[in-house]
C-alpha cells in the first residue's frame, strides 16, 4: 500500500490552472523528487498536500485516510512535515524555541499545570528541552541553541528548518528546495544528511529540487511537472533521457 496517494488533483488560481489532474503515488520509505521548470506548480502541490491551500478537485490519501482540505495543523498531526522554499523560521525566537514550538503538539502538561506551575510543568518542560537539544545535536546546532534564529548563517537556517520539521516526528517529510543557495560542498553534505535522516527516522521523503546532481544522486524516483501537468515519471536514468522533460527545460527543437 502506498503511504501517500494523490488522485487527479486540481487547483486553479482564477483562470490559471496551477495543478491539473496530477496523480502521484509514494510508497513507504521512498525518496521521491518533484522537479520542473519555474512556475510548474511544484510548490502549489506542496501547499495542497500540507493543507495550506485547499484543492478544487481530487483527493489526497495519506495512510489510507483522506486528508485533502484539512487545516495544516491537522495534516501535521497526521504525520506530514515540511520546510519552505523561502525559509520561514520564527525569526525573533531562539534556535531552541523554534524547535520547541514544533514539539508543541505533544505537550506533556495541561494549561492548569502551566498556570499553577505544578511539578508536571517542570518535568514536561525539561523533557521538551531535552528532546529539542537532541534534535539540534543531529543537525550540529546544539552550540547555537540560544542564538536568535535570524542571526544564523543561511545554511544553518536551512538545517534548523529541517530540524524543526522533524520535531513534529513525521512519517512523510516534504522538503521545498532544501539545497537552494548552497554551494556544491554544502549540497553534498545535505545529500548525506537527507539519506541519513531517512534511515534513522524511518522517513519517507518528497523533495523539490533544482540541483540535478542532488536529485539524480539520491532520489529513487522522480516526478516531472510542467505547466501544472505531470509530464513524466520514473527512475533518474529514465528521466534523464526523457524527450518531454528535456523540452520542458530547454525548449523544443526548431524545425
Amino acid at each position, binding site marked *: 500500500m502506498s503511504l501517500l496517494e494523490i488522485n487527479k488533483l486540481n487547483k486553479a488560481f482564477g483562470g490559471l490552472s496551477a495543478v491539473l489532474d496530477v496523480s502521484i503515488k509514494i510508497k513507504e520509505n521512498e525518496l521521491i523528487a518533484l522537479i520542473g521548470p519555474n512556475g510548474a506548480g511544484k510548490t502549489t502541490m506542496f501547499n495542497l498536500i500540507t493543507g495550506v491551500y485547499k484543492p478544487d478537485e481530487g483527493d489526497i490519501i495519506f495512510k489510507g485516510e483522506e486528508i485533502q482540505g484539512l487545516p495544516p495543523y491537522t495534516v*501535521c498531526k497526521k504525520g506530514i512535515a515540511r520546510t519552505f522554499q523561502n525559509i520561514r523560521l520564527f525569526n525573533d525566537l531562539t534556535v531552541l524555541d523554534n524547535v520547541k*514550538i514544533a514539539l508543541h503538539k505533544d505537550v506533556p502538561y495541561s494549561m492548569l499545570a502551566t498556570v*499553577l506551575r505544578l511539578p508536571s510543568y517542570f518535568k514536561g518542560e525539561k523533557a521538551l528541552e531535552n528532546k529539542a537539544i537532541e534534535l539540534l545535536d543531529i543537525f550540529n546546532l546544539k552550540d547555537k541553541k540560544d542564538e536568535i534564529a535570524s542571526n544564523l548563517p543561511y545554511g544553518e537556517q536551512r538545517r534548523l528548518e529541517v530540524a524543526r520539521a522533524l520535531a513534529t516526528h513525521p512519517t512523510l517529510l516534504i522538503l521545498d528546495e532544501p539545497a537552494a543557495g548552497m554551494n556544491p560542498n554544502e549540497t553534498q553534505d545535505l545529500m548525506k544528511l537527507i539519506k541519513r535522516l531517512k534511515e534513522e527516522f524511518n522517513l519517507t521523503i518528497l523533495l523539490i529540487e533544482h540541483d540535478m546532481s542532488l536529485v539524480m544522486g539520491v532520489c529513487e524516483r522522480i516526478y516531472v511537472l510542467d505547466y501544472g501537468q505531470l509530464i513524466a515519471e520514473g527512475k533518474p536514468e529514465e528521466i534523464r533521457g526523457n524527450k518531454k522533460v528535456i523540452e520542458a527545460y530547454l525548449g523544443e527543437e526548431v524545425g
Partner: protein
Amino acid sequence: MKKILKNKLSQFIINVIILAAIFTIVQYMLNVGILNRFYEITLTSMCINIILAVSLNLINGFTGQLSLGHAGFMAIGAYVSVVITNYFELPLIIGLIGGCLGAAIAGFIIGVPTLRLKGDYLAIATLGFGEIIRVLLQNIDYVGGPAGISGIAKQTNWAWLFGSVILTVIIIQNIINSSYGRAIISVREDEIAAEVMGVNTTNYKVLAFVIGALFAGLAGGLYGHYFYIIKPETFNFLKSFDILVMVVLGGLGSTTGAIIAAIFITVLTAALQAFPAVRMIIYALILILVMIYRPQGLMGNKELTIRSFGKIWGEKR
C-alpha cells in the same frame, strides 16, 4: 542541576521579599498618611493601568493581533461586578470573579468571528465591538443607561489592587513561559509556519483574546469599586487607545515594558493634571520621540528581571 535549582529558588525568595516589602511600605505610608488622597488615586489608577496594559500586551504584543476594544471588556467587568455587589449585595470577591468571567465570555463571543481577520481589519472590528458594548450599556436601563451606576461602595483597597496586579502578571507570565505561550508567540512570528508545525492558530488567538479580556474585566471590577461611579462614557475608544499607547511605549511583547509604561503614563497624567492641554501635547511628543528613536518600545521584547540586574551588576564589577 542543584545550582540551577538553588538559583531559581533564591530568585523566587528575593522576588517574594521585594514584593512583600513594597506592599508593606506602601500600606504603611497609606496608613500614616504620607500618601494622601491624591497619591492614593494615582496609585489605584496605576495598578488598574498595569493590569490593563499587561493583559492587552498578551493580545497585541505576544499574539500579534491588533485589538482596539480593550475598554469594552473593562466596561463589562466593571458593570458585571458592580451589579453583583451593588444589586445582589454579594461580596467583592464574587463580584470580581463575575466581572472576569463576564468579560472572558464577551471576549470569546467577539474573538471567534473577529480573529479570522488580520491586521487593520481586526483593529477596526475590535474597535467596533468595543463601541457596541458601550452603546449597549448606554441603552440598558437596568444599569442606569447613559448616567451609569453611582453610589457604589468603595471596596477596592491597596491589598486588592496589589494582589490583582501580582496575580495578573504571574498568570500571564506563566502562560507565556510555557509551551502554550510559545504557541501563542509562534502565531505572531509566522502564522503559516506555526500552522504547518501543528499549532492550531485560531485556537491560540482566541485563547489569548479570552485571557486578555478576562484580566481587563478584573481591572474594570477594581475600577468600579474605587471611583464610586461607573458610566459607559468612561470606557470609550479613547480609553482603549490609552491602553494601547502604554503597550506600544513599553514594547510589544514585554510584560515588564508594559508595567513600566503603565506606571510612567499614570504618573505623567497625574503630574500634569493641572494642565490638561499641555498634557496631550507632551503625551504626543513622547510618543513621536519613542517612535523615532526607539520604535520597538522602551523594552523591545526583552524582560527586566532580577537576573538582568544581576548581570549589569556583574559587568560593573
